[in-house]
């Protein structure tokens, strides 16, 4: 799993059906010290996260598909938690 900070959002009407009615958030990936790592990804939101929040990202296709209960969805990254504190 990875940690990241939500910096934006993308919307689309023409997309793969697996993405219908799901929020696609742009997440800036962070290092363990909370700094931006310079990389980013777009993840599906499953927990109701919003701008500026630090989140836990599951970046593995099979696990994401199991959580969504969609066997053949082309989805790899999902936001699985909102982080309150990192020690």
């Amino acid at each position, binding site marked *: 799993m990875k940690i990241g900070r*939500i910096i*934006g959002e*993308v*919307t689309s009407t023409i997309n*793969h059906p697996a993405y219908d009615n799901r929020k*696609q958030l742009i997440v800036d990936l962070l290092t363990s010290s909370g700094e*931006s790592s310079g990389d980013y990804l777009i993840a599906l939101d499953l927990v109701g996260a919003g701008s*500026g*929040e630090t989140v836990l990202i599951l970046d593995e296709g099979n696990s994401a598909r199991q959580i969504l209960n969609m066997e053949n969805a082309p989805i790899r990254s999902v936001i699985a938690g909102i982080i309150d504190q990192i020690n």
Partner: protein
Amino acid sequence: MKLGKVIGTLVPAVVYEGLEGVPFLWVQPLSPQLDPKGKPVVCADGTRMAGPGELVTFEASREAALTLDPWFVPVDHAVVGIVDTHRIEDIDKKGKKK
């Protein structure tokens, strides 16, 4: 999933079985701020509707092949959506808006 801009199309003469009729696009990967980032890649078009100049989202690796039907095809990047709106907020290190 990442952001990209379609910069061209590509027509293969011979394709592996399962890829007949699938459009292929040149996609320039972008940063969240829409600046070019990295080298362009060839993507199969899972939406079958994307064209040059459009802002799209694309998926890499095994998930790319899953956008197509049949899905067990040799594809490693695929366009999964055409972006309608894109919003980036200026957020500082503490997660607050600037």
